[in-house]
């Protein structure tokens, strides 16, 4: 051995750039060079920090989860890989090479507290090794693996986090370091998990989504085969796996893009303390979802993990690139089953729908909501009790995550989108250090029959939507269902009934009744309760019992119960009405893109376009890639160099209502539905208030005297004339919108300090309110328009009872100066530039119209027309020249040549009375 330099300070971090486990290894200990003892000491210190976090986490999370299932008290196991690096380079994995198995050498001190523990662990391995080999492939690198007792170092006994694996312990050997779990079942699951980590090739998968997901999925399968783990209590094993490996029945609820990313534990959180009373961030749910996602694959293709490991071994370069890994997975699947699908979808489509498997780092705020039903300890009026847990955090460019605090006012909707008020304790969620929770009980409102509840959880401008079947899972007087769910976006005409059929293997259960789009039943056969693929069909029957199939879905379920949300957000494609036409435009997402990154969603290279999302909290734009996780209902300014028609894979809602969360101030949003929404199809909710119509909430309903929640006008962007240099519109102006159309971005101003939720209805195009009147038009209204070379700009002015010469929130609306484009504005007596300018109804008035952004020498047309009320006299005077123009029959049209970059006209209207 060479002479050793002093030990360099240890760095404990999650992600490195070069290691085989670089993206996915949980702990990396970087050393300059070192002697053996200090190295071991640092490894201990690094892992002590790690496991202490889990110790706290697991204790707290168990307490929370025990509310859902009191029997669910087993500890969590989160084994890890600790990778030593030296001078930035990973030490090679110890061992002999391919072929042969592992030889385990156990630390005899395991037996000091639990006599026979080492023999027990050896037997666990001996019993399971054949199953492990068959599911995961033989160890990529054979040889000795030391299993060392680190209980004294790891400490927290109650947490029992499992242990960790070192491909190289600094001396060329491989080690699994375990705590001395009081439960042998826990110790056995942890050992199997760590052994599977030791099975992996080196380099292995570059992302936690693959590494941890595949290992967890395989650990689950191995441990659930009694013959593979004959010494274990399967009831206890089930609870261990439910806590740390599997989300079971809740997958549909928990499948959210916010979980995605290259690693599951943010670098900065590895050694950060967990505040008492919260979960410390999203990482545990990430581990569980990753295990569950890959378990879905293994349900259909039990050898998939083994075959993918072999493919990685044959092609190590594919380990660190997400696209290559995905292609490798596809080719592996095809080698097993040509044209094979997962849950009926091609792998490339399926993986995009699993939020946890998106490996790209996206910046910005993120919201994850965990929903779980309470099934035990119900009494009295408990009917539909659900836990709602929020994880609210922000990801930085380097992957660090900030655990945020805040407040959410969840909104509960019945099937007709009438707000349900559960209880005072459930109407507000205070979030501290990223965590907040409530447990609403949805009362029996339907004579004991189930009903669907839509839960909107908004935090700032993020919102999550879940559908739960109240009364369909567990009540004090009914047996707990093991198959339950909701149906969304399905029409149910009067005189028809909905039913759900489920088939699995040769068995089926048909005609499960649906009540108010919710259903639940108890099947309880061993065949159904196994982890397997099921086919679910929603059927509508008329009074004669004639069935019509509405939708069919294949689900690869985990062991036990299954909850599903059927029909919600079917995958489709969205775009923009004019595509991305080149130059500056403002667009909106009328569906929730599957991809979490905006450039990925649009299918554009991140260097080929500019995008911006307004951040009212900062009063400035967030510029891509800081725009954050992309989601439906968001609007963006986008600038492209040429016409591009994106075809965005997205979940597209068309038959339901979807909420968009607003922050105080200006919000750049869009209609989240695939269909046009009239203003009358939009509700607005503030905190715990009852919903108001958009027109009322924005002060446009004169019969509603309550203070407005929103600004008077929703603005959309009108691109200006083509720029002389680029030949593309690089500027433009804002115009009031009369409808919320799909694909368009809108500026909406929220006046409520708590924020608000706009609920966009499902009325299809052509439905009620399609041609709602211009929100601002009241009494006598005139329009002043300016037409130039390829440009147009308009403002509205007039008289209204109740209006004053000052600024009236109910009548007036200011307009910003155009930036790079031609713009007309009405100058108020307060010298504001306005888009809407109303004066008292009882007086004649003169309005100054300012025309800006003109090109000297160019001919323009200035038009006044009256669009509401009796036509009255109007006289316009060019302020610069003094020339006056008289009224035509129904409009006043003036053509003039610009003598400068701006002009003013005074327009006097008379005789309104």
């Amino acid at each position, binding site marked *: 051995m060479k002479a050793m330099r002093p030990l360099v300070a240890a760095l404990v971090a999650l992600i490195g750039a070069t290691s085989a486990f670089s993206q996915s290894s949980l702990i990396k200990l970087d050393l300059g060079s070192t002697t053996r003892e200090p190295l071991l000491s640092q490894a201990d210190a690094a892992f002590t920090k790690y496991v202490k976090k889990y110790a706290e986490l697991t204790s707290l999370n168990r307490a929370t989860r025990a509310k859902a299932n009191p029997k669910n008290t087993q500890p969590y196991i989160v084994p890890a890989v600790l990778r030593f690096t030296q001078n930035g380079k990973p030490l090679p994995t110890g061992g002999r090479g391919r072929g042969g198995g592992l030889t385990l050498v156990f630390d005899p001190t395991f037996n000091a507290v639990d006599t026979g523990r080492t023999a027990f662990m050896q037997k666990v391995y001996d019993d399971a090794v054949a199953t492990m080999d068959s599911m995961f492939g033989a160890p990529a690198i054979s040889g000795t693996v030391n299993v060392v007792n680190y209980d004294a170092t790891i400490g927290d006994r109650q947490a029992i986090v499992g242990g960790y694996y070192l491909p190289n312990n600094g001396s060329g050997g491989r080690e699994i370091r375990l705590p001395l779990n009081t439960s042998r079942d826990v110790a056995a699951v942890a050992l199997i998990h760590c052994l599977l980590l030791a099975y992996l090739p080196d380099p292995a998968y570059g992302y936690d989504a693959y590494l941890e997901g595949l290992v967890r999925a395989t650990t689950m399968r191995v441990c659930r085969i009694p013959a593979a783990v004959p010494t274990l209590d399967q009831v206890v094993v089930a609870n261990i796996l439910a806590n740390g490996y599997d989300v079971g029945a809740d997958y549909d609820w928990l499948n959210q893009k916010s979980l995605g990313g290259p690693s599951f534990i943010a670098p900065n959180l590895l050694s950060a303390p967990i*505040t*008492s*009373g*919260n979960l410390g961030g999203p990482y545990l749910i990430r581990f569980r979802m990753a295990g569950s996602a890959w378990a879905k694959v293994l349900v259909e293709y039990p050898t998939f993990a083994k075959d993918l490991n072999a493919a990685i071994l044959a092609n190590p370069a594919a380990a660190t690139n997400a696209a290559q890994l995905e292609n490798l997975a596809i080719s592996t699947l095809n080698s097993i089953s040509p044209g094979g699908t997962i849950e009926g979808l091609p792998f490339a489509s399926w993986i995009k729908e699993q939020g946890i498997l998106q490996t790209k780092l996206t910046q910005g705020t993120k919201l994850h909501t965990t929903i779980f039903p309470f099934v035990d300890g119900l009494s009295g009026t408990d009917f539909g009790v659900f836990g709602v847990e929020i994880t609210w955090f922000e990801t930085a460019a380097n992957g660090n995550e900030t655990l945020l*605090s805040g*407040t959410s006012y969840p909104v509960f909707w019945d099937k007709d989108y009438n707000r349900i008020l559960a209880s005072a304790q459930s109407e507000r969620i*205070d979030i*501290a*250090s990223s965590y907040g929770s409530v447990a609403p009980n949805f009362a029996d409102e339907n004579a004991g029959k189930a009903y669907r509840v839509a839960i909107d959880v908004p935090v700032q401008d993020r919102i999550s939507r879940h559908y739960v079947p109240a009364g369909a899972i567990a009540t004090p007087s009914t047996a707990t269902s093991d198959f339950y769910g909701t149906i969304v976006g399905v029409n149910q005409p009067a005189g028809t009934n909905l039913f759900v059929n489920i088939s699995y293997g040769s068995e089926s259960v048909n005609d499960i009744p649906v009540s108010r789009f919710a259903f639940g039943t108890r099947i309880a056969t061993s065949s159904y309760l196994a982890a397997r693929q099921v086919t679910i069909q929603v059927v509508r029957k008329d009074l004669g019992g004639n069935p019509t199939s509405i939708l069919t879905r294949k689900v690869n379920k985990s062991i036990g119960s299954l909850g599903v949300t059927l029909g919600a957000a079917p995958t489709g494609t969205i775009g923009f009405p004019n595509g991305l036409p080149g130059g*500056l435009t403002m667009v909106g997402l009328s569906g929730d893109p599957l991809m979490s990154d905006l450039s990925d969603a649009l299918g554009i290279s991140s*260097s080929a376009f*500019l995008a*911006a999302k*307004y951040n*009212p*909290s*900062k*009063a*400035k*734009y*967030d*510029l*891509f*890639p*800081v725009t954050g996780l992309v989601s439906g209902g968001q609007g963006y*300014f986008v*600038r492209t160099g040429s016409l591009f028609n994106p075809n965005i894979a997205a979940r597209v809602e068309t038959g339901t209502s979807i909420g968009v969360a607003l*922050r*105080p*101030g*200006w919000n750049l949003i869009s209609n989240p539905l695939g269909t046009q929404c009239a203003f009358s199809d939009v509700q607005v909710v503030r905190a715990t208030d009852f919903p108001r119509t958009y027109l009322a909430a924005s002060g446009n309903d004169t019969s509603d005297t309550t203070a407005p929640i929103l*600004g008077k006008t929703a*603005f959309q962007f009108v691109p200006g004339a083509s*720029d*002389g*240099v*680029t030949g593309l519109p*690089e*500027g*433009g102006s*804002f115009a009031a919108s009369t409808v919320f159309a799909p694909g368009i971005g809108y*500026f909406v*101003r929220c006046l409520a*300090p708590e924020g608000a939720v706009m609920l966009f209805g499902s009325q299809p195009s052509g439905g009620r309110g399609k041609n709602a009147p211009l929100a601002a038009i009241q009494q006598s209204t005139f329009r002043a328009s300016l037409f130039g070379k390829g440009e147009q700009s308009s403002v509205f002015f007039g008289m209204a009872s109740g209006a004053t010469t000052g*600024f009236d929130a109910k009548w*007036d*609306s*200011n*307009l*910003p*100066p155009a*930036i*790079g484009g031609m713009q007309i504005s009405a100058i108020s007596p307060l010298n504001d530039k306005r888009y809407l300018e109303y004066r008292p109804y009882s007086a004649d008035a003169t309005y100054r119209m300012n025309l*800006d*952004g003109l090109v000297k020498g160019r001919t323009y047309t200035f038009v006044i027309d009256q669009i509401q009320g009796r036509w009255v006299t109007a006289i316009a005077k060019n302020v610069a020249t003094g020339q006056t123009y008289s009224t035509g029959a129904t409009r006043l049209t003036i053509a003039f040549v610009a003598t400068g*970059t701006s002009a003013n006209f005074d327009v006097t209207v008379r005789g309104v009375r």
Partner: protein
Amino acid sequence: MIRNLFAILLILTLLACGGGGPPGASITLTGRVLNVDTGAPFSTSATVQSSVATGTTAVVDGSFTVSAAKSSTGLTVLAPASLGYPIFDFVFPAQTQAISDVGDLWVGPQKVTLKGVIRNASNSAGIAGAKIAFAGQNGTSASDGTFSIPNVAYSNANTGSFLGLVGQVSATNFFSNEFTPNGNTAVSGVVDVGEVLMTPLDSDNPPGLPYNIWGIISPSASANGTIVTLKDSGGTVVRRFTVGSDARYQFWVDAASYRIEFQNGSLSAPVQNVTLSSSSDVIRADATLN
């Protein structure tokens, strides 16, 4: 102790005077007294003292009503004597309504000072004069946005209730906001809640357009009509902007190195070279015409 003695003497004096203040000028103060150690009302009544009267809290919910002089600005709360808690004085804005609700007044076994800083979310500048309310205590931010509120109820033994308290902050021209201790517990009698950000009450106008290069042309009297030309590193014109009366120009362009030229008739400004390392960077490049 001396302070408590003064308080008792004051109360006795006021009682001896028949309540003080002109006849008919009294109001009723209502609210709740809660124990930060338990997060609940006291199981035996606490005492609430105004300048003119003494009341007790209801065991069931901690609520109280007590007469007070109009425009009262404070109450004193004494926890059940058996607990040995310190006396808590609460100061609030003058109450003038016939029945005025002063909200939840939290008391506990310890007192801490709550500190933090109120900042403008748009530019991180400290906000002066912001009103902060927490656990029944009130304060105002200093010129740099910092605040310090003494006598806030706390329990060294049980921090759960304290950590769940929600404070309010309001300031002119900003949306009001809430905050929590955010998991921060007392260190040497001080709980630092860190930064509390407030969103400015923006104008009625929607925001302007996005940009990542911008600047102001001076002198402002000469700025109108200035042509600002953006060229790439090869000298090709990328954009051109005509400055208006606001003397401002802006571009939204890809990450690259650029050269910015300024011309207004015979006036010009020195060329500026800027590099956007990322399109999410924002660079300001002002220019002075001469």
